[in-house]
């Protein structure tokens, strides 16, 4: 019986160690993640004016959306649409890659909602962000 108790104690300790180890940090420094990050960083120069004019807003699910096409001159509308599509592709890929880099693909949704909240929290004044109900508000 003592052996059984020792075994259970060891198991419990191992389980605690596993939890502590895995919960300690999130890996975001992989070649794939860095590449997506750089791509988004380069695109930001073109997206920032669109955030500022309110043409593009930050959605509640961690993406961007062309919420007011009329705020973009007709000649630049196709380009704006393309920027939004490319940005969303990168963002979705980023969330997936982070989950995968941490060996928990099932975390993708939670990573996405964490980012969604932080993008909105860090958005500059005057930018449009989407509330949980779907309404757009100006920060």
């Amino acid at each position: 019986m003592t052996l059984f108790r020792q075994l259970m104690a060891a198991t419990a300790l191992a389980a605690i160690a596993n939890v502590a180890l895995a919960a300690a940090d999130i890996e975001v420094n992989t070649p794939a993640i860095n590449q997506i990050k750089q791509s988004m960083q380069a695109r930001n120069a073109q997206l920032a004016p669109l955030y500022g004019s309110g043409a593009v807003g930050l959605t509640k699910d961690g993406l961007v959306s062309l919420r007011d096409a009329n705020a973009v001159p007709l000649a630049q509308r196709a380009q704006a649409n393309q920027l939004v599509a490319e940005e969303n592709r990168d963002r979705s890929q980023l969330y997936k890659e982070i989950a995968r880099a941490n060996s928990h693909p099932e975390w993708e949704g939670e990573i996405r909602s964490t980012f969604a909240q932080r993008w909105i929290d860090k958005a500059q004044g005057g930018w449009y962000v989407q509330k949980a109900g779907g309404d757009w508000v100006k920060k």
Partner: protein
Amino acid sequence: MRTSHTLPVLAALALLTSACVTINIYFPAAAAEKAADKIIDEVWQQQGKTPAKPAEGKPADAAPADNKPAQ
């Protein structure tokens, strides 16, 4: 003779239990938030709002704050 038979079973059970704990792990919400902030700052290049050079190899993080279940 009974113990010699039950012990391997118990050991197998114990292993399975510990494996389950590893799989059903809590989502590290605080660490994820910190990682998100770092990436967002880099993408938006908002050096003014957070320290420009955050310590790269941070030691033990405040893991106890991560108490949100993964579901």
